[in-house]
Structure formats: C-alpha cells, structure tokens
C-alpha cells in the first residue's frame, strides 16, 4: 500500500513542481544556464549556441526548445525558471516578456493581466 506521507504532488494547473525528478531531467540545461552568471559563458553561448549546448550535454529536446525560444518546452524538459532567467537575459527578455511568451500574450497584455489582479 502506498502511504502518501509526504506533502508531495497535487495537480496545480499550469504549474510544474520542480522536484527531484524534474531536477534530474533538467540538470544539463540548468547547469548551462547557471554558468551564464559569468559573462564569458554568455559570450561563448552567443558565439556558438550549438557547440555550447553540446559541451553541456543537453538532450535533443532541450536543444530544440532553446532553438524555438519555447519556454514552456524548456520547463517541461526540467528547466527551472531561476536558471532559465539567465538564458532570457542573454536575449534581453524581461520576466514580463517571458510571462507573455508562456501565456500567449504580448508583453503589454501580460502587464495588463498583472495589474488586473490588484
């Protein structure tokens, strides 16, 4: 019998709980993004994104999500938003841009949605 003794998963629509399973799946993607804390790594990625993704051992699905600017795809592939935010920084995207990209809104529509909850 399975004992659900942990405060573990409940289904929260539109939300991925970044747990050990996701952290393992996303490890190379998140590691590459974590290393964007350093400017030389951002420059390296900009100069040769494919080579950079290869060097970090990203899985093909992770590489394709990056090629497609597909944030939801990156999250499904185990990307954690705090590390992905550093990738977004390379493309000068704000968190409102990223919010819009994930919810099918323009930046302005996303900002209006935020303000509507006041």
């Amino acid at each position: 019998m399975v004992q659900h003794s942990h405060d573990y998963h409940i289904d929260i629509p539109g939300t991925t709980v970044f747990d050990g399973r996701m952290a393992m799946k996303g490890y190379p993607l998140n590691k590459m993004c974590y290393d964007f804390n350093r400017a030389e790594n951002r420059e390296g990625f900009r100069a040769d994104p494919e080579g950079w993704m290869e060097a970090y051992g990203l899985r093909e699905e992770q590489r394709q999500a990056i090629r497609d600017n597909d944030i939801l795809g990156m999250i499904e592939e185990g990307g954690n938003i705090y590390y992905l935010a550093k990738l977004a920084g390379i493309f000068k995207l704000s968190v409102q841009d990223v919010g819009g990209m994930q919810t099918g809104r323009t930046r302005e529509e996303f900002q209006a949605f935020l303000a509507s909850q006041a």
Partner: protein
Amino acid sequence: MAQILGGITTSHIPAVGNAIDKGLQDDPYWKPFFDGYPKVHAWIKEHKPDYVVNIYNDHGLGFFLDRMPTFAIGAAHEYRNEDEGWGLPELPPFPGAPELSWHIIESMVEDEFDITSCQELAVDHGFVVPMQLFWPGAPNNPDMPRAVPISANTVQHPIPTLKRALDFGKALGKALRSFPEEAKVVILGTGGLSHQLDGARAGFINKEFDQYCLKNIVSNPEELTKISRMELVEKAGAQGTEFLMWMMMRGALGDEVTEITRNYHIPISNTAAGTLLLECAA
C-alpha cells in the same frame, strides 16, 4: 547580551534595484511601492541596529543544484554580489560578522538544526535589494550594519515546511539573544508575496491569500503552519513559496510584536509586493 529590535520584510524583485539606480521612486508606477519605506527608514535611523540578519532565498547565484542546502548561513568577513547574468552593477562588499555567524551556527546545531556554513557566499538580489531599500546607497551607508546572510532553499522541492521555517526562526531568536555582546540586531525576511514566473499560470497573483498571510503573521503565525507546502505553491504561486523567509523572520521575534508599518501593492514586476515592519517588545 544582544537585543532583537524587530523584523522587516520586503519583496526583493531585481527590477527594484534597477528603479533605485535610475531614481524612479516618484515615477507613477513605482511610487505606491516606494511609499512603503520612509517609515522603515525613520525606524532604522532611530534604532541604528549593529547587525542585520538577512534571511533570503538564493535564486541560482550562490548555490546550484549540484549541492542545494536547505538552510545555509554565511560566515564570511564580507559578501559580494555578482551580475547574475543580467549585467547588474557589482557593488562594494557588504561587511560580514563572522563571530556572530559562528555563534548562530553553534547555537542552532546544538538545537538540532542542521546548517550548511559558508565561508564564501555570493549574494544575489534576494539579499542585496532589501539592503538597498532599507539603507539607501548600501553598502555605502554610514549606518550600514554588519550582516549575516541566511538562505533557505525554495528553488527545488522538497522545500522546508512552514512550521520548520517558523521553528528555525525561534531557534535563531534564541541564538541571537544569547550572543554575549551589547548589540542591537534587526532581522530581514525577504521575498514574496504571491507570484509565479513559470508555466501556463505565469502571472498568477492572489491578493486574498496574501492578506490572510499578512494578517496572521503579525499576531498568529502558528495559524500559518497549517498551510501545507503544496497549498502554498497553489495559493501563493510557484515562487510565492518565498513566504517561508517571512516565517523564519517572524519566529525570531518572539510572541509579542508591534506593527509599525505595512504596505502592499500589486503589481511590481510579476509580484504582489509586501512590506512589514514589526518591533519586538522591549
């Protein structure tokens, strides 16, 4: 013995640092947020704390998933920020207080909290932005206290429970009050309130839940320990779990507190921004 003056909470959104740099405090978008701080400034000027214990959550600068401490305490002589991948300005170092850090670590491990001690720790916006909000020009402010950073994991589940966070604060308070120095300490709890950056639910904000948390954290924080972690994700948003820092701060203050000021504003960036100043009974 050291005395805990009180605790201050604030959101720590990176965009706030940018707004401070550009002097946007009176801009119509920013004014309702920055209006929450003059009373905090006056209180700090009046009480002049010697030490600041800054409880924040690292967002992927000081720690990565290779080693993710649930509770980490800085024990360094100084703390530096970095550009975090976004070209944030790199500031002069924040002065540390390693003798206080080690006192806290000794006391908390004796009380069965398993701590990761850090003799080097890069501090991110979760630590820096509140310092800039409370001590304008930080770290170049004549009243800048020496700092002890404490970071709790909210990046990767399992995160601590709300009860554990409150209990952590209680043990922290005990540690501070037994520090053998006539010194005044202020405790920061940074982050929150409700927000979600990721997924199809990005942009989620929950005013009703935030108001519930704000109300109870002042006089009835035990009530909030009934909230499960998944419920916190559901109601506060995936990144609203930063409310744990507020619980840690609150636990350290003891039972009796006086609310000096509060502010709540939607939105700043993607977040419901909250500020609260609680003074301890003398």
